[in-house]
Structures are given as C-alpha cells and as structure tokens.
C-alpha cells in the first residue's frame, strides 16, 4: 500500500468494501466528517474514489478510504494530529 502501508493503521472496513459503503460508514459513525475530491493528498498519497469522498475525524484519528486495484477499497484509520488539522483546514463540510 505504498507509504500508507508503512504507517500504523487500523482497518475499519476490510478489503472489498465498496466506495459507497466507505462513505456511508463515515457519515453514519463519525460526528465530525469532511468531504474531499479524488486527487486530495493525504499521508503523502493521492486519494482515489467517486466524489465526494468522506473523511471521518475523531480527535487525532483520520478515517479514510484507500483504494488499490487488486483489492478494492479499505476504510483505514490513522492517528496523526497534524494531518487531522490539515484536513480541517483544507477539506469542506458540504458534499
């Protein structure tokens, strides 16, 4: 999984989740969520998906979809306060 594979991540939804399932899960389970478009850079990688892509934030934890051609989309969580703050500054609240 490139750079993200080297980070300490938690798998929220496993391999094979659809991009819609990931978006719905974030909207349903997180009080704080933000929207970005494909190509948004997160943890030094460009996010893939059908816009709008929902990112959940819980404290310093960012929850985001991560797509790989052979596996589909995972919903991952990574703790990073600086990156969470950057999402709050650069993402949008509305779809």
């Amino acid at each position: 999984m490139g750079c993200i594979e080297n980070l300490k991540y938690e798998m929220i939804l496993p391999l094979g989740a659809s991009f819609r399932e990931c978006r719905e899960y974030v909207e349903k389970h997180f009080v704080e969520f933000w929207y970005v478009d494909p190509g948004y850079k997160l943890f030094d990688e460009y996010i893939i998906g059908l816009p709008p892509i929902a990112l959940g934030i819980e404290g310093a934890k960012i929850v985001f979809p991560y797509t790989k051609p052979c596996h589909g989309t995972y919903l991952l969580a990574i703790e990073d306060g600086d990156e969470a703050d950057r999402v709050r500054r650069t993402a949008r609240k509305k779809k």
Partner: protein
Amino acid sequence: MTDPKNPSPGKALIVLGCPEVPVQQALALHLSHLLTKQGFAVHATGNPAVLNLLRVSDPEKRYLPGMSVLEKCIEEIVEKKRDSDLCVVFAHSDAGISYAATVRHLLPSSRLVVIIFGKDPETLAASADFPCEKIVEKAVHNPMQLKKKINEVFGWAA
C-alpha cells in the same frame, strides 16, 4: 500510422485494473494498437503485475511504448504534468470504477470510455453514475464479444 492530412488526435491514456481477468491484457494491446494506428500517443498505467504482463507480451514495445504505475500516473495528472484527450479505463471491480471516477474528476474535458467486464458487469456499470461512455460485456476468458463492442464504439468495426 498517422495520416499526414489529418493531425494527431492527441494523447490517449489506458488505465488498467488488476490482471486477474485475462481478457483485459489482450484487449489493452488491441486497443493500443488501433489507437496508435489512428495517430494517438498512447500511454498505459496499472499496477506492476499488469504492466509486467504487458511487457512480456510486447517485448519490443510495439504496441505499448509508454507505461507507468498507477500511483505515479495519478500523481502526474494531479500535478498537471500529464493530461489526455482520451481516457479508456478497464474496470472489472469496484476499484476500477473508483479509478474511472478519479480520472473523470481530474480530467473533466477528456473523452472517458469505461470498459466494464468480468462476471457481473451490469451491477458494476450501474455504480458508474458519472459522465462517461460505457462498454459493458460479460467477459472473463474470451475477449471476442467485448472486442467487437470496443471496435464499434471507436469506429473500427469492419
């Protein structure tokens, strides 16, 4: 080869999915061959496995002279270092549709053709609800029916 009376139609990008469905690689070479004959400068992108399959099939790079891994290609598109007049995305999974949606968003003025195949292409095609041309055919091992549809869409039907 390019007709001197007609200028090049531009650049074409072929986006490949995971190589687990065999028809994809054969059709990618077919598509690249005919697009090149039509005058397109063709570039293909995919994961390392699919690119290696194509390298083995095309050792002299006659059909696919330019290839790069997906992450690098997406990075170049986001950073405006690469664009394309035509994008053809092969999709046999949800991930393929995600890549097609990403290409649609990043290259809004390109012609986008999404080739949706595999065991259950109709369900997958329904999830591609963004502007694109879709070629949908149940195809895993036999490329002929899908090849026929591709040829019709691109005006190569005999």
